[in-house]
């Protein structure tokens, strides 16, 4: 089981999914119309490390975070 968290302004509860890689996650999340803009402008972290590609294998207990555009300060 992999946990998916939506950070900051994305108003969505965490998901628990049986997925093996980020490609599967992309397919699942793209079905949710409310997420479509967020998927275009959000960064993705696996276990709190940002990733730049979908070629990431996932294992049981991994945590995925979606980070929408930032503005600290």
């Amino acid at each position: 089981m992999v946990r998916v968290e939506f950070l900051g302004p994305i108003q969505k509860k965490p998901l628990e999914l049986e997925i093996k890689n980020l490609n599967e996650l992309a397919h699942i999340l793209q079905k949710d119309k409310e997420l479509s803009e967020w998927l275009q402008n959000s960064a993705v972290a696996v276990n709190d490390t940002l990733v730049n590609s979908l070629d990431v294998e996932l294992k049981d207990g991994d945590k995925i975070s979606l980070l929408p555009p930032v503005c600290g300060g």
Partner: protein
Amino acid sequence: MLYLYDGALDVPTILKNWYEAEATSNYGAYIPFVGTVRSENNISGLSFDIYEPILEKWFDSWQLKAKAKGAIIKMAHSRGDVMLHESSYIAAVFSPKRRVALMLIEEFVEDFKASAPIWKYDLKQNKRIYALERSTAISGSGILGVFS
């Protein structure tokens, strides 16, 4: 040396504490950057969400870059609401030499704006409105939106 506070920062106290903590560390230059909430767009203030695990990793990577130049970085940021003319952000560089300090504070503050996992909301008529148009997508964003 990353400090998160609920609400506005006590700027004079933080600047004083940091200065005194490094008073005998033999740094020749101390450059704090203080960010204060401006009155614009009829806001009554700003509000912030922070994702701490990634903020800490990002900050630690900057601390290593600074250390390689003989410098250190300190940073304070607010969580939650900060009202008009209150301050929400302080970043500071201590360095033996002024050139390193001047370069580093600029690079750090710019990367902070582009990369630190903090989300800003305008406080307006008791609403908390995400400041999307002033926000920056983190490098590498959008990979989940590409049809594959």
